């Protein structure tokens, strides 16, 4: 329960809290004290980076994710283009070999605007809900959403330009996404139109891929320009309500990224590449209140931190499966 409440609080814009010293477990406290008394020296960092450089697949999860994202979207394209009817429709709603699926956020928008609940939509909604509960909620963002992929590429450009001091990131208040979520929900209800769909780059890109490009792509391009030149990953971080919808689903998902305090060197590489670094606040020195901690539900399960962590302190886990059961019991 604590995980869900804290996940939601941070997701809606709350700052990650420092742990209450009283509540830090004994073994975690020991590690904190140990690390304080024996700070890592440069040679130690060199050692772990050298070791990490031996990793034969430094982008294992990223590559798996990109392949999955492209495959899912291509399945839509191919289904229509060759009329093979495997995955018909677009990301907003579809049929997978005949079974209804509906994007949770699009379905919510439709229900709010239309004010009538259609059975097929309920079936599609529940199917997708169960699917993403099992797979991690915001997993949708990084493993399926086509905008996420182009935004990742734009982010690389942003970081490259930032390194050359040509652009700089302007972090914004994360709570703005929550405010916008409420506004878009109210707008749909009050106006009777699915207002957010008009500017949703997820829907626009998905339809452009399947049904051919249109002027709407200019809007997507504009968003990318903002992200490159003004504020890093602005859409996904501060605007997109789809992220919140799936994030809420993710609070009850067993698929999470797990942090282990023991070997962590607190060098912070994970937070630098993370789309939602607030979920990794426990990786800051002295912040972890237990040996094993689950990363919050705003996490998109993209695996960039798992890839980059030189000490394997961040891993994917499925709660309640195999060896992880042991760790849970300890708490």
């Amino acid at each position, binding site marked *: 329960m604590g995980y869900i409440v804290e996940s939601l609080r941070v997701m809606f814009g709350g700052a990650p809290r420092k742990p209450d010293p009283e509540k830090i477990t004994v073994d975690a406290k020991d590690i904190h004290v140990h690390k304080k008394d024996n700070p890592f020296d440069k040679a130690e960092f060199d050692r772990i980076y050298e070791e990490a450089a031996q990793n034969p697949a430094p982008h294992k999860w990223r590559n798996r994710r990109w392949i999955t994202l492209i495959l899912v979207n291509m399945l839509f394209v191919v289904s229509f283009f060759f009329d093979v009817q495997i995955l018909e429709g677009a990301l*907003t709603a579809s049929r997978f070999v005949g079974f209804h699926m509906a994007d949770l956020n699009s379905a919510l928008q439709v229900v709010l605007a239309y004010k009538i609940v259609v059975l*097929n939509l309920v079936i599609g909604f529940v199917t997708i809900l169960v699917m993403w509960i099992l797979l991690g909620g915001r997993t949708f963002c990084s493993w399926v959403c086509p905008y996420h992929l182009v935004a990742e590429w734009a982010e690389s450009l942003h970081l490259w330009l930032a390194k050359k001091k040509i652009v700089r990131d302007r972090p*914004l208040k994360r709570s703005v996404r929550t405010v916008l979520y409420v506004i*878009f929900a109210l*707008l749909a209800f009050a106006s009777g139109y699915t207002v957010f769909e008009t500017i949703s780059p997820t829907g626009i890109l998905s339809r452009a891929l399947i049904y051919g490009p249109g002027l709407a792509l*200019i809007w997507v391009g504009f968003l990318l320009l903002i992200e490159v030149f003004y504020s890093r990953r602005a859409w996904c971080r501060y605007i997109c309500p789809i992220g919140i919808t799936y994030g809420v689903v993710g609070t009850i998902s067993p698929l999470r990224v797990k942090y282990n305090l023991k070997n962590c060197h607190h060098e912070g590489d994970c937070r630098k590449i993370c789309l939602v670094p607030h979920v990794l606040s426990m990786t800051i020195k002295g912040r972890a209140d237990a040996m094993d901690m689950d990363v919050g539900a705003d996490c998109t399960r993209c695996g960039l931190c798992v890839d980059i962590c030189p000490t394997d302190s961040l891993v994917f886990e499925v709660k309640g499966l195999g060896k992880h059961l042991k760790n849970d019991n300890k708490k």
Partner: protein
Amino acid sequence: MTESDKDKSVNTKKKRVRSKRRQDQSRRQFLRSTVLATGAVGASMLGFWPVVQGHSLRLRPPGAIKTPFDEQEFFASCIKCGQCVQVCPVEAIKLADITDGFGIGVPYIDARAQACDFSCDGLQCVLACPTGALTHDLDYPADTRMGFARLACAESCLAVQGKGFKGVARGPDFEGLLRYDDVDRWNPIKVAEYEYDLELCDLCVRQCPIEIRITQCAEEAKQKKDSKVARVAEKHGNECPPLHAIALEPIEGIDGTQRMMPVVYEGCVGCGVCEMICPVEPAAIVIDIDKTADDV
């Protein structure tokens, strides 16, 4: 950051300076976030403009829940997935672009380019719709109310001029598809592949899906007594339209001669085939979207 700041903040004067900078930073961040939020909401609300202006009004697929001047319910219920697009055998359905505002991703039909000819028989788009934006209340093509045909320019109509028509209806480059029962009952072919040789042009009547179905029904009825097959066919979808949609009626020409003119009847559903097939440029007969057979 915060921890080290606190350590250094023993000197209170220094702390005050620092926190003022923090405050500035925070204020700027708040301002930027507000601008971003306003921008996002503003951009999405721009979608209202084409709707208010009426620019987003279009010919919609069968069963679209709308009235001629109000598409709000249709826009609201449509989830913008394009499953209707995918099932249409003649690819008549397109999805609107962002220029339609709130109508983005909502299906429409450009009848002149590709009309709905009901060659799917079973209203596949309606069956494909996951949200009921294309209402499942429809059973047969004759139940549809997309719009209503109108002879917009009688002077250019070949029949009114007493002219025939020879050749392909819309020129050799026209991409539009149509079902020609005499060629292939199950697969629509290109209009450009079908040669006509008519003494008097009656393409709008000849190709009207409602009229074609009425003729078929009449023939079936004739055979009914001795054919069980016909009876089965009658029961399986595409039920006989109760009313005629269009016919050529005699009129008196300008020079006093007897001429023929297409007249639209109450059975017209506004599918747009007449507009697509009309060989003159621009089409002499068009579909009005502000009217349906129910308003006649």
